[in-house]
């Protein structure tokens, strides 16, 4: 009350501020995303069911052999590949591996990102400087080239791929978690918990973590999406696990084992389209979460 003369403000009334205009606008923008989101959710569950119960959908076991290089027919809807596997069955079974790589990677990187972000945001000071400095340093190192050399030295296996991808893609999560933690730690309930003498660990787990979930979810989904693309790319270079045929490996084989030269579009287009669609559905869900987060924040501002 510097001014002295001021009419008091009453709660719960029309806000004639510019922020309100912005608010309306963002709602509109979210609405456009809404539509996609439902489609994304539908697609995602479709792929999830494929991944969980491939035997229900695949016409043959993925390792069963028929005549090789068959074009599409009633028996083999997408034909067969160089060693006579049914491509449709391979595609259905590939969903599990591709999605597993994505989600496992996202789990690892979310965990690391959460730990680093939480510590850095909660303790602040020197720890924050060090951890964020480290994050910045790691952020600059180009991931895919690094994975390429590590992958080249190690024998290709899906687990090393997951581990290396997971260890290298946590930076953006750490940053988001940190900024959110900085915000939450100033909230009344965290302060009161500190006053009551709860340990830092307890406060971080029971007071701060539940409030981080809604910023973690979109990041988790987007990390999954980008990990799936990375997996597909690395598999294409022959750094994938050939014993577990993901969509990326299928594409790679189609390219290196004659599918492309023979113009067998039914071999190389379906896995690529599957990757794109699956990644898109996951990313859409991530965007959806992000939109909801935005809304919550706006809702809090308005009060």
């Amino acid at each position: 009350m510097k001014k002295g003369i001021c009419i008091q403000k009453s709660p719960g009334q029309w806000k004639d501020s510019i922020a309100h205009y912005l608010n309306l606008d963002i709602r509109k923008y979210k609405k456009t995303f809404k539509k996609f989101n439902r489609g994304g959710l539908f697609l995602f569950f479709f792929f999830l069911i494929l991944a969980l119960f491939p035997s229900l959908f695949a016409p043959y076991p993925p390792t069963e052999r028929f005549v090789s290089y068959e074009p599409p027919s009633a028996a083999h809807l997408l034909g067969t590949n160089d060693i006579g596997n049914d491509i449709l069955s391979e595609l259905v079974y590939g969903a599990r591996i591709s999605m597993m790589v994505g989600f496992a990677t996202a789990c690892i990187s979310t965990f690391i990102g959460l730990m680093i972000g939480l510590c850095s945001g909660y303790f602040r000071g020197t720890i924050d400087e060090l951890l964020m400095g480290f994050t910045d340093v790691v952020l600059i190192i180009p991931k895919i080239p690094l994975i390429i050399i590590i992958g080249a030295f190690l024998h290709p296996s899906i687990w090393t791929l997951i581990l290396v991808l997971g260890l290298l893609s946590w930076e953006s999560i750490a940053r988001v978690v940190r900024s959110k933690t900085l915000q939450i730690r100033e909230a009344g309930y965290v302060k009161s918990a500190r006053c009551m003498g709860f340990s830092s660990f307890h406060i971080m787990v029971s007071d701060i973590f539940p409030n981080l979930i809604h910023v973690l979810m979109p990041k988790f989904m987007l990390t999954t999406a980008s990990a799936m693309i990375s997996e597909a790319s690395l598999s294409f270079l022959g750094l994938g696990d050939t014993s577990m045929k993901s969509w990326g490996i299928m594409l790679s084989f189609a390219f290196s084992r004659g599918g492309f030269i023979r113009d067998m579009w039914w071999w190389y287009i379906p896995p690529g389209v599957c990757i794109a669609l699956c990644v898109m559905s996951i990313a859409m869900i991530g965007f959806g979460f992000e939109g909801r987060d935005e809304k919550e924040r706006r809702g809090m501002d308005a009060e």
Partner: protein
Amino acid sequence: MNTLLEVKDLVVSFHGNETENKNEDKNESVTAVSCLSFSIREKETLALVGESGCGKSVVAHAIMRLLPQESRVKGVIKFRGKNLLEMNEKEMAKLRGKEISIIFQNPSLALNPVYSIGHQLAEPFKIHGQEKRRAAEERKEEKRKEKRKEKGKKKEKENTILSKIVEALKRVGFSNPHEYMGYYPSWCSGGMNQRFLITASTILDPFLLIADEPSKGLDRDRVSELENELKNLKEMNENALLLISHDLGFVRRLADRVAVMYAGEIIEIAGPSSLFESPHHPYTRGLLNSLPENGFVPIPGSSPPLSSLPAGCRFHPRCPIKEKRCMQEHPELKENNGRAVRCFLWP
């Protein structure tokens, strides 16, 4: 004196287009301003006062047609004989900044952070300058040769703009304007930005200047500075001013007439001395009593949300002298010896 701006039966409503939000009834439109009428004469200062949230700023934005697309504006806003609400966006854009200008409440946010002060001050000339200057320079141009003209004109143009900006900056109290023109808003204090903003808005000498809560967030010294600046501006340029504020003392010193708003409508219009000395409407009285120098007595209750206004007089739930009909009928704004009041109890 001629009427410069006449607002008649202005209704502004907003459509919150949320479909899936928790409170379904919010879907309906909210009327922020209802049946608002007032007029401003040339060179006059009209102040619009009221609590924050009563729709003052919405009026300002409605006059400039700056409201977002979700809003519906009805009524008539007549500016120099033309109805602004019937103009298309292009015609309106030509008017904005040249004939009507606005000063926003947050100067540091209203200036673009990535352009220099000089650039932003020169912008009004760049946007509106062409027509004016063309007419003035056409006569001179005829005498000169084609190519020479092109180059010379540009230089000359820039020089005249520059000298005008320098002059305007000196007027608002900057001793070395050339230095400040290279600065960016984030390098300057809020008070300095306020002066830059005022300069930018008045540099084309508009007929009407709208000041939307110019004193908000400034400390006392800055407010008195601002007051002097606005006074100077009025004396020198003789433009009309629509002053929107909740700072009653500030308004009292500047305004020629004061309109008090409550819950989206005007409840009293009067000259400042008569309003402050003998307020008629119970709300105005309550407002004045809530000032620190008058005992700091707050009005009981709070103003109603615009989405659910009370029936009858909008002030009746908080009114100390309400009667039965106040709860049922909505009073009209009645004019009597140059002042108007929206209350049954005042004839």
